[in-house]
C-alpha cells in the first residue's frame, strides 16, 4: 500500500501523515477532529486521491441511523407492490436497499470510506457501528446473508465535537486533532491553492486574517476554508494590496468581509471596534 504524504493541494503536517499511515497499515478507522474549516472532510478526498482509491462518502445528519449505512428494508414499496399484485413481491431481496457501508465492503478494490460529521447523529449511532467497523462484516436478517468486506476499506471519520463519542468506539480508532495552521503552514496552503497569487496580496491578506483571528470575542473565528474563499474573492475583484494595508479607520473592516465573518454579531463587533479606533484617532 502506498504511503500518504500530502498532495499538491493539501498540505499535511507530519503528525497527520503518521496518523493516516497508521490507520491504513493497521486497517482501523481514523477519527479526525478540529475547528470547522480546517480541512477534515477534504482530508478523505485527498487521501483517496493520494492512494489512488475510489472514495465513498457517507454524510451524517441528525436523523441518520446506523442501520441506514448497512442496508434498509423498503417495506413501503413492498406493501404497495403487494397491493398492486407485482410478482417482484415474492423475493424480499428486491426490497433491500444497500447502504454506503455495504457498497464499501463489496467494492472490488479497496476504497476510502468517509463518515462525515459523525457527531451530528444520535448518541447511540457510533455504538451501533462498533462491530461493523471492527470486524468489517454484518448480517442481513431479511435475506439471512452475511456481508463481509472483500477488502477492509480505509475509514475516515470526522467530528465537530458537538457530542462526545463513546469510549468503546474511540478505543477502536486512531485519533488526530487538526490544529489550526500557523502562519508558515498557512502560507504554504495559500501557495498550494493559488500558485499565481501576487506575493504582496497574499502577505497583506494573511496579516488581516491573523489579526482578525486574534480578536477574542469573535463568535466564529474564520478558518482556513474561509481564508481561501476570501482570497479567491480578492483575486476576482483584483483589489490592490494597498487596500488591505491601509490603516484608515474608516476601512477597518476588511473588504469583502462577508467571506470571513459569518454572523451579524461579529460584524457589529468589528464595526464597534472600528468606531472606537476612529474616536481615538481624533
Amino acid at each position, binding site marked *: 500500500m502506498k504511503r500518504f504524504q500530502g498532495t499538491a493541494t493539501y498540505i499535511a503536517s*507530519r503528525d497527520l501523515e503518521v496518523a493516516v499511515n497508521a490507520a491504513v497499515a*493497521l486497517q482501523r478507522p481514523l477519527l479526525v477532529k478540529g475547528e470547522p474549516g480546517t480541512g477534515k472532510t477534504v482530508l478523505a478526498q485527498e487521501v483517496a486521491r493520494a492512494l489512488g482509491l475510489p472514495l465513498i462518502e457517507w454524510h451524517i445528519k441528525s436523523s441518520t441511523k446506523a442501520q441506514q449505512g448497512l442496508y434498509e428494508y423498503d417495506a413501503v414499496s413492498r406493501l404497495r407492490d403487494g397491493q398492486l399484485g407485482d410478482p417482484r413481491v415474492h423475493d424480499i431481496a428486491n426490497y433491500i436497499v444497500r447502504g454506503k457501508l455495504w457498497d464499501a465492503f463489496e467494492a472490488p478494490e479497496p476504497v476510502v470510506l468517509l463518515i462525515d460529521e459523525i457527531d451530528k447523529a444520535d448518541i447511540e449511532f457510533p455504538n451501533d457501528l462498533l462491530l461493523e467497523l471492527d470486524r468489517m462484516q454484518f448480517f442481513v436478517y431479511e435475506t439471512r446473508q452475511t456481508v463481509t468486506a472483500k477488502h477492509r476499506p480505509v475509514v475516515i471519520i470526522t467530528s465537530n465535537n458537538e457530542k462526545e463519542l463513546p469510549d468503546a468506539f474511540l478505543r477502536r480508532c486512531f485519533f488526530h*486533532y487538526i490544529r489550526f495552521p500557523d502562519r508558515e503552514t498557512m502560507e504554504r496552503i495559500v501557495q498550494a491553492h493559488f500558485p499565481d497569487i501576487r506575493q504582496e496580496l497574499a502577505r497583506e491578506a494573511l496579516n488581516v486574517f491573523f489579526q482578525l483571528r486574534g480578536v477574542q470575542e469573535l463568535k466564529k473565528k474564520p478558518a482556513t476554508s474561509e481564508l481561501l474563499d476570501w482570497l479567491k474573492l480578492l483575486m476576482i475583484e483584483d483589489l490592490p494590496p494597498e487596500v488591505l494595508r491601509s490603516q484608515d479607520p474608516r476601512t477597518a473592516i476588511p473588504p469583502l468581509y462577508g467571506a470571513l465573518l459569518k454572523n451579524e454579531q461579529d460584524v457589529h463587533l468589528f464595526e464597534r471596534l472600528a468606531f472606537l479606533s476612529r474616536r481615538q484617532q481624533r
Partner: protein
Amino acid sequence: MLAHFILALRAAGIPASITEYLTLLRGMKQGVAEYSVDDFYHLSRATLVKDERHLDRFDRVFGEVFKGLEPPEGDPVRQIPEEWLRKLAEKLLTEEERKAIEALGGFDALMETLRQRLREQKGRHQGGSKWIGTAGTSPFGAYGYNPEGVRIGQEESRNRRAVKVWDKREFRDLDGDIEIGTRNMKLALRRLRRFARQGAATELDLPDTIRATANNAGSLDLKLVPERRNAVKVLLLLDIGGSMDDHVRLCSELFSAVRSEFKHLEHYYFHNCPYERLWKDNRRRRDTEVPTWQVLRTYGPDWKLILVGDASMSPYEIREPGGSVEHWNEEPGTVWMRRLTDHFRRSAWLNPVQEGMWDFTMSIRMMQTLMEERMFPLTVDGIEAMTRELSR
C-alpha cells in the same frame, strides 16, 4: 519501557487501554514509525489519545517518560505551598505597572530574581508589589499581569531547553475538565433527557395510518410523526472564585457530566450572585464578558436554567444596589435573579453546601426564597430531585 509509559499515561488520567497499547505495538511492528522519535511520538499520540483535551497531558507525560525529565528535588520552585497561589482576586494592571515589570529585565532576569526572593521570603503574602503571592504586581505568582510568564508550580525550566515537539505544549488550551467519578452524576442527569416530539416527520404513526388507510378505501395512506429525540437545552451558570474555591472540584465534575448528555448546553460563570454581566472563560474573563440581557435574549424560555453556587455571601450582595464585592452594580442581585427565573420556564439552583447547613446562612435562605424553594444539594439524590423538578 512502553508498559511503563502506558502506566504513566493512566496515572495522569489518560484512559489508554491494553487494546490501544497492542495497537501501538502492532503499528511499530508494521513500521509506521520507522525509527524516528518524532514519528513515534505522532504514532503513539494517534493511538493512545482519543480526546483533544488529553493532548496536553499526553505531551507532558511523553516528555517525562522519554527524557527522564524528573523534576529536580532541590528546586525551590517546586516547594511553594499551593495555598499561596490560590486565587483571591484578579487584577488588571495599568500601563505604567506593566512597564515597571518589564523594567525588571527579561525572562531570565525574572527567574533569577524569583530564586532570590524565594530564599528571602518567609511567609504567605498577598497583594503588594515585591513578594510572591497572588494578585499583586510582583511578577511572580498567579492571576496577576502575565500569568503565562512565570507560572509557579509548573516546571518552568522547560523554557531553557531546546524545545521538542511535545514540549511546545500546543494543546494546553484544550485541557479542561475531569471525567473521573462522574458516573453517578451521569445516571442522575440522564433523567433530564426529555423526549419531545420535534423536528422532521420520520416515524410511522401506525394508528393514524390505519385510520387514514380505512378512510382511503383500503389503499395505503402513510402518516408520519416526528421522531422522539433528546431535545433538552440547558443553560448552566456556575459560581466561580471566592468562597466557591472549595467546591470547584465538585462543580467541574458536574460540568463534565452534563457536557456529554445534551445536544444544547451552554455555560457562563458568575461570582456569588448573577448581576448584569456573565462570562464564558474565567481565565480571560475581561475578554469574554457578556451582558446578562444578551444571555436572556439569546436563550429562549424553553432552556432549562441550572445555577450552581454555594450562595454563601453577605446579604447585601443580594439585596442592595452596589452590594457586589467586585464592582458597582446598579441593580441588586434580587432583580437579576428574578429576571432569570421569570425568563426561563424551568430553573433550579444546585448548592454544594450540605443541606443541613443551609439554615445557618442568611444568604442561602434568601436565595432559596428567590428560587421559590427550588434549591437542591449537589449530590446524586439532589440532582435527581432537581431533574424531576426541571422536567415536570
